[in-house]
């Protein structure tokens, strides 16, 4: 059935809450208001004020409380509104949530999900547009999910809620209103498995979140030039599904990573380093990176567009990979 990404996220939350009464949700403006993007509209009425709770503006307490509830038997879904606000609770996510089980022992399971809305969204500016995956890739123990389609969003959120590991679930603001085919009924998508969004043979393009759509647009353009790119959506950023990417590179011998956050020390930096270490003998050229310019996100919309990669930027990078000095 066709539904938007936002509807898919809401459906996953609703269905899981109906299935398991250990699932509770809290965060800023999620109750009566139904979340600033409308994700949890109607949840308060359906699940009541014990399971659907507003919080004060207290990100550290939101994350910490989720941790405590998770360790003691509940399955909290904490909401941090903008992904940018994860930084307010950075210690809680980085030190506590990610490491709690490692530091305390196998009895300490943290079945908790931290949801946040990330990415550029037409003038949200420097503090409300960040993609934060790369910041948290440095935290072993944390699972980071960044879906690009409604079907993936629903299936992965369900898996995240059912997982006993702590999960940072990054929803893209610009994707909320995009539509896609979502399977009927209860289904999950496994965590840690990448998806080939479009098969191809010349260059492997690993794209994340909104950039998956941009990469698919680039694929259309390039096809007209006789260039065939394979678009891979890792979906789970950490732990990363290396094998799907490796298999693709063994076929194409070229790799480009496309992300929406700043290039320096971004997802692409890590993946490029990993690929040159582990796939050197399969690569027929340097691993490419397409990312946002290394500037804070500008408020001006024209410049915001300029800062973030588009399909043309991706296509150019692909052509450069294949260029030969004839």
């Amino acid at each position, binding site marked *: 059935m066709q539904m938007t990404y936002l509807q898919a996220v809401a459906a996953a939350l609703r269905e899981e809450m109906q299935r398991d009464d250990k699932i*509770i949700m809290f965060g800023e403006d999620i109750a009566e208001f139904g979340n600033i993007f409308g994700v949890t509209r109607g949840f308060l009425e359906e699940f009541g004020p*014990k399971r659907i*709770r507003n*919080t*004060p503006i*207290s*990100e*550290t*307490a*939101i*994350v*910490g*409380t*989720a*941790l*405590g*509830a*998770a*360790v*003691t*038997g*509940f399955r*909290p879904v904490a909401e941090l509104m903008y992904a940018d606000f994860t930084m307010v609770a950075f*210690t*809680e996510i980085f*030190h*506590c949530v990610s490491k*709690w*089980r*490692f*530091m*305390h*022992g*196998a*009895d*300490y*399971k943290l079945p908790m999900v931290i949801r946040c809305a990330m990415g550029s969204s037409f003038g949200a500016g420097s503090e409300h547009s960040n993609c934060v995956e790369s910041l948290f890739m440095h935290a*072993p*123990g944390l*699972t980071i999910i960044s879906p690009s389609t409604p079907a993936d969003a629903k299936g992965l959120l369900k898996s995240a809620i059912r*997982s*006993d*590991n702590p999960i940072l679930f990054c929803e893209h603001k610009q994707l909320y209103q995009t539509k896609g085919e979502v399977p009927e009924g209860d289904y999950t998508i496994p965590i840690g498995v990448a998806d080939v969004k479009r098969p191809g043979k010349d260059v492997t393009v690993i794209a994340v979140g909104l950039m998956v759509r941009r990469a698919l647009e680039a694929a259309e353009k390039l096809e007209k030039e006789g260039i065939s790119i394979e678009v891979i959506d890792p979906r789970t950023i950490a*732990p990363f599904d290396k094998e799907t990417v490796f298999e693709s590179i063994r076929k194409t011998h070229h790799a480009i990573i496309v992300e929406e956050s700043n290039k320096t020390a971004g997802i692409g930096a890590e993946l490029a380093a990993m690929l040159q270490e582990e796939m050197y003998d399969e690569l027929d050229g340097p691993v490419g990176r397409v990312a946002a310019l290394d500037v804070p996100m500008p408020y001006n919309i024209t410049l915001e567009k300029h800062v973030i990669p588009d399909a043309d930027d991706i296509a150019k990078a692909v052509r450069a990979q294949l260029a030969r000095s004839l």
Partner: protein
Amino acid sequence: MQYTADFLKKVYRDLLSIRFFEEKQVELYAAGRIPGHIHSGIGEEAGVTGVLTTRKEGDFFKISHRPVGAGVIIGAPLETMFAEIMGRVGGNALGMGGVLHMTCREKGMIGFSGTLGCDAAAAVGAGLTIQMNETDNVSYVFYGDGTSNRGPLHEAMNLAAIWKLPVLFVCNNNQFAISTPSSYSSAVPNPGADRAAAYGMPSKTVDATDVVAVYEAAKELVDGIRAGNGPAVLECKMYRVRGHFEGDQAKYRDAAVTEEWKKKDCVLKMEKKLVDEGVMTAEEIEALRAEVLAEMEAAIDAADKSPEPTPEDLYRNLYV
């Protein structure tokens, strides 16, 4: 208030257990058998002992780095605790967590954080679990006068208060955050109790050299929490007898004051009370001391037999 001899003996035994646990840590550390650093809680045992005497089955505990021996009376296995402190695979976290994370999930210990204050909300989360389960349990949070100035603690207190969660915030005010006196870092004389009003919580302060007095103050607050009145703050007045870490000579403070506090030692005070009230003879006290010490030594010997973790162990608890 009148107490049975058994009750007082039990309290004394708990007090002694923490004291010896803390002393043994110091010994092991000096002998080079503990990596990293430890934070001895000698002299601060009455605070946690008196408070934890109010506990019951199903309660949750967020202890702090001082005294970590609190875990002993909550019921964490001694051998596991020593193995964790010594970095052995027999520790609760395979020797990966260390002294700041030795714990026991089964007994309601939710773990604690080395970044002080970030774990207060975890105890609030445990309080949320209690409220969801609709039991009369309590989630105990121990923190210090230093942590009382951290933002996350205040976010946690506020959230507990607005949700009326069953949480007891216990501020063990030992008067120093490393070298910084509480009188400098807080504008109020009671950095725990005085701030409770900001969150609409009841509070009490208590002389924490007297374990029975601590118990009585805690019991009053805990009874209210178990009755569904929401969180409260208990501030235990005490003194950090040793340095912040082993090797800290505490030159930044008046040694004469330290000596005065040593005379008010909570263990000596309890022993005097037991003898004065005819609960135990000096010989019985000696025998109990020997018994508890022997337990510690047996646990250390057993922990010492635990092997070092291997590189494979690094990945065992990373993901479920």
